[in-house]
C-alpha cells in the first residue's frame, strides 16, 4: 500500500475523532424536557440552589399614573373594543410598553381540542387586539406563546384562532423550544426556590399575561396566576402543593400586565371544556397591572371571592398584590 493510503487512514481517524468529539459534546448538552415524569420522591426541591441560575433583573414595579384606574372592567359585545377601553382606562399600553421593547404575550392555549367558542382557550380577538396595541406603543418585537398539554403547539395555535389573529396584527407566534428552558432561582419562593422557566419570558422587557377565566378541577378556577404554569417545565410536579407553588411562580415571572379574558367563561368541565352548555357569555375584559387584583376580580365572575381560591390568597399573602377589591380604584366601562 502506498503512503497515500496511510494518509487517507490518518485523515479518516482525524475526521472520525472530530466527529466523535462533536457527538460527545452534543451528548453533554443540557438534556431537553423529560419525556416521562420523574419519580414523586424527587418532586420537592427544598434546598435553594444557585447553580445555573439566571441573572435577570426583577420586573419594574409600575405605579398607576394619576387619574387612571388601578383595575378596569370593560363590558360590551365588541371584544376588540372592550379590550382597548380596558387598557386605556388603566393608563394605556404606553404605560407598560416603551419604545423598542421586547414583549411577550402569554395567552392560555391549553390544548388543540376545541375552538375558542368553547372557552378553554383565550379569545383570539382579545389577543390580537393586545398585539396591535403593543405594536402601536412602539414595541420592537411581540411574541405570543404557550406550551399546550394536549395536541401539538402548532395545531393548538391554529385551532384556537390565536395564530391567525396574532399574525394579522403583526405579531409572531413562537413554538416554545425545549432548549430554551433554564433553571432559575425564585428568591421569594416559599415552597419552591428554583424551577425551569422559559428564559425568553424571564428576559422579556414586558410580559402580558392573558388568561381566560375558567373552571378547574382542583383549584376551582384558572386565572392569571394559574396561567403562568405555561412558562415552566414539569408542570405535573406543581400539583403536589399547587396553590403555594403557583404563587411562587408569580413572584418570579411578575407579569407587567394581566388581562383576564372573560368574553366567554367556562363554568364546568374545565380546564379543557368541550361542552357549550358549560360556557357563559359575559362579554367582559379585566385589565390590571396587579395580577392578584385581576384574579380576585375574575373570581367574582364565578361567585367566589379572591380569598376562596388558594393560589390567589397565597399570592396575596406573599405581598404580590391586592386581594381586597374595595381598597382599589376600579373603573367599570360599558361599550
Amino acid at each position, binding site marked *: 500500500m502506498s503512503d497515500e493510503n496511510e494518509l487517507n487512514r490518518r485523515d479518516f481517524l482525524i475526521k472520525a475523532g472530530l466527529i466523535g468529539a*462533536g*457527538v460527545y*459534546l*452534543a*451528548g*453533554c*448538552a*443540557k*438534556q*431537553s*424536557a423529560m*419525556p*416521562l*415524569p*420523574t*419519580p*414523586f*420522591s*424527587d*418532586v420537592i426541591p427544598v434546598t435553594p440552589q444557585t447553580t445555573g441560575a439566571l441573572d435577570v433583573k426583577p420586573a419594574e414595579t409600575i405605579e398607576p399614573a394619576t387619574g387612571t384606574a388601578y383595575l378596569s372592567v370593560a363590558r360590551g359585545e365588541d371584544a376588540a373594543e372592550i379590550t382597548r377601553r380596558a387598557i386605556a382606562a388603566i393608563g394605556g399600553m404606553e404605560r407598560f410598553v416603551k419604545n423598542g421593547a421586547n414583549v411577550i404575550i402569554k395567552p392560555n392555549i391549553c*390544548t*388543540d*381540542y*376545541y375552538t375558542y367558542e368553547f372557552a378553554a382557550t383565550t379569545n383570539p380577538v382579545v389577543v390580537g387586539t393586545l398585539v396591535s396595541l403593543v405594536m402601536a406603543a412602539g414595541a420592537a418585537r411581540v411574541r405570543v406563546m404557550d406550551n399546550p*398539554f*394536549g*395536541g*401539538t*403547539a*402548532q*395545531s393548538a395555535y391554529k*385551532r384556537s384562532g390565536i395564530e391567525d389573529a396574532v399574525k394579522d396584527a403583526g405579531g409572531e407566534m*413562537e*413554538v416554545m*423550544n*425545549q*432548549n*430554551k428552558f433554564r433553571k432559575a432561582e425564585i428568591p421569594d419562593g416559599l415552597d419552591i426556590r428554583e424551577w425551569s422557566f422559559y428564559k425568553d419570558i424571564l428576559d422579556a422587557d414586558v410580559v402580558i399575561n392573558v388568561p381566560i377565566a375558567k373552571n*378547574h*378541577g*382542583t383549584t376551582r378556577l384558572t386565572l392569571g396566576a394559574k396561567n403562568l404554569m405555561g412558562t415552566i417545565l414539569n408542570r*405535573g*410536579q406543581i*400539583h*403536589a*402543593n*399547587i396553590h403555594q407553588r403557583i404563587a411562587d411562580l408569580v413572584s418570579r415571572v411578575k407579569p407587567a400586565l394581566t388581562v383576564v379574558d372573560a368574553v366567554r367563561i367556562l363554568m364546568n*368541565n374545565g*380546564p*379543557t*371544556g*368541550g*361542552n357549550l352548555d358549560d360556557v357563559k357569555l359575559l362579554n367582559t375584559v379585566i385589565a390590571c397591572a396587579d395580577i392578584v387584583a385581576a384574579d380576585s376580580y375574575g373570581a367574582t365572575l364565578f361567585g367566589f371571592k379572591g380569598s376562596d381560591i388558594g393560589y390567589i390568597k397565597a399570592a396575596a399573602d406573599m405581598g404580590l398584590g391586592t386581594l381586597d377589591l374595595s381598597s382599589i380604584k376600579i373603573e367599570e366601562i360599558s361599550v
Partner: protein
Amino acid sequence: MKAKATRRIRQVTQIASFGLFMALFVQAVYLGQSPLASDLFYRFDPLIAATAMFAGRAIKAGLLYSLVTIAASILFGRVWCGWVCPFGSVLEWLTPKYARNEITDKWRVVKFLLFFILIFAAVLGNQSGAFLDPISLLTRTMTTVLWPGLRFLVYGLEGFLYRFDFLWPALDAVNTNVLLPLFQGIESVFIASLPVFIFFAIVIALNRIAERFWCRYLCPLGGFLGLVSRFAVVRREVTKDCISCDRCSKVCPTGTIDAAKGYASDPAECTVCYDCMAECPVNAIAFDRHFPLWKSAQSQEYDPHRRQVILAAAGTLGGVALAGIEPIRRRDPVRLIRPPGATLTNFTTVCMRCGECVRVCPTQGLQPSLIEGGWQNLFTPRLVPRIGYCSYNCDACIRTCPTGAIPHISKEAKQKTPIGLASINTDRCLPWAYDTLCSVCEEMCPLPEKAITLEEVKISAKDGQPMTIFRPRVLRDLCIGCGVCEYHCPVGGEAAIQVQTLPSTNTFISGV
C-alpha cells in the same frame, strides 16, 4: 448518446422519486395541512394492493392506482424497480464499488417464493409477512430509526449551542425556519428501533455480496413485478453487432446479462436501467417492442418450479398454523391498545404493517409493536400512552391508513369510539396512596364531560389537622382510553393511571 441520455433521465427520476418520498414523509405529520397523500407510494404498490384485497376480501378502490404499476411492468418490465422504488434507489446508491456478484443465480427464486407465500398467507387471512414490502421497509426504517436518529443528533447539537446566549438569535432563526418544519418538535422514541435498524443494516450489508441483493433475491414486490415482466412488451435485445466485450454484463446492477447466452438478459430481472446500453461501445443493445406480443420470456433455471411453489404453499400453511397457536388467538394482551377505530375492523388481518400510521402520529404514541401481540403481529401499530397519547382532536392515522385497517370514520365518531379504558392503581396514585393533592389526570381528560371525576374526601393529615383531598375515579361509560391521563401522570415510572384494552373485546370475559 441516446442511451446515456436515457440513463441520465432514469437517474434523475430516481432522485425525484426519492425526493418525493421524503417530502411526503416529512409533511405526513402536518396533520392534513397538505393536499398530498402521505401514503401515495403505497397506493401504487401492487403487492400491498393484492395482499390487502385478498386478506380483507374486498376491493379497495384507493389501492387500484397499483394497476398503473402493473400496466407499466407489462409494457416495459421492472421499471418500478429501476426508476421509481425509493428503496431500490437507496440500495443502488449504497452499493460498494467492490460488490462481489458471485452468488449463484439459483437464489433468485427466493423472491418469487416470498411473493407466493405472502399471497397464500393473505388468502388465508394472515398478513404477518407483509412487513417485507420494500416501501413498508423504507418507511418503517425512516420513521423509527433514520429520521429520529437524525433529529436526536441535530437537537443534541442545538441544545449544546443554546448554552451560549449570544447564539440565541441565530439559533432561533434556524429552529423556526428549518428544524421545526422538518421535525415538528416531536421528540421521538421507538421501542422497535434497534430490530428495525438491524434488519435494514443487514439488507444494506447484503449489497456487498451482490449489487441490489435485496432486489435480485429477496424483494417480494420485485418477485411480483418480475413475474409480470416476463410478458413485457418492450424488452432488452442484443443484436448481431455484439463484439462480446463483456462490458454490459459487468455494469448490470442485477447481474442478469449472461455471457453464456450471448449477453441476453431475463426481463423478469432487468430493471431497465439502460446502464448496459450506455456502456456498449458498438450500440448492439436496444430496448425494443417484442413480437409477437404476450409471449412469455424464455424460462430460466431459477424460475420457481412446481415443486417449490407447492412447498411454499405447504410452508405457508405451516406458518399460519404456527400463528394459530399463539396466545393472542385466545386473549388480548391487556396493554395492546390499537389505533382509534381498529376495534371496528378485523384489524390484524387488514393491517399491512406499513407503518404509515406510526409516522403520522403527532404524539408518537403509536409504536410498531415487537412481540407484544405475538410474533404474527410484528410491527403492527399499538398505542403506548406513556410515550404518547391519542390526541383528542387528531385523526391523522385514520386518514392515512391505506388499507382501511384503521377504518375511515369521522373525527366525531373517533372521539366517541373507545380504544381502551383507563384504570387507576390506588397503590400508586398520589391522592389515594399518599394523601397528596393531585388532579392532573382529571385536568387532562379531553372529553366534554370528563371521564375522570374527583371525589372530595376529608382526611386527617400527618400533623393531625383535617384536610380535604380529591381522589380521582374513572367513569367507565365515558372513558375512551386516549391515554392523555397516563401520559401526564406525574408519578414516576409506570403511571398510577393506565389505559388497558377494553374489557368487552376480551374473549375470556365475553365467554367465547
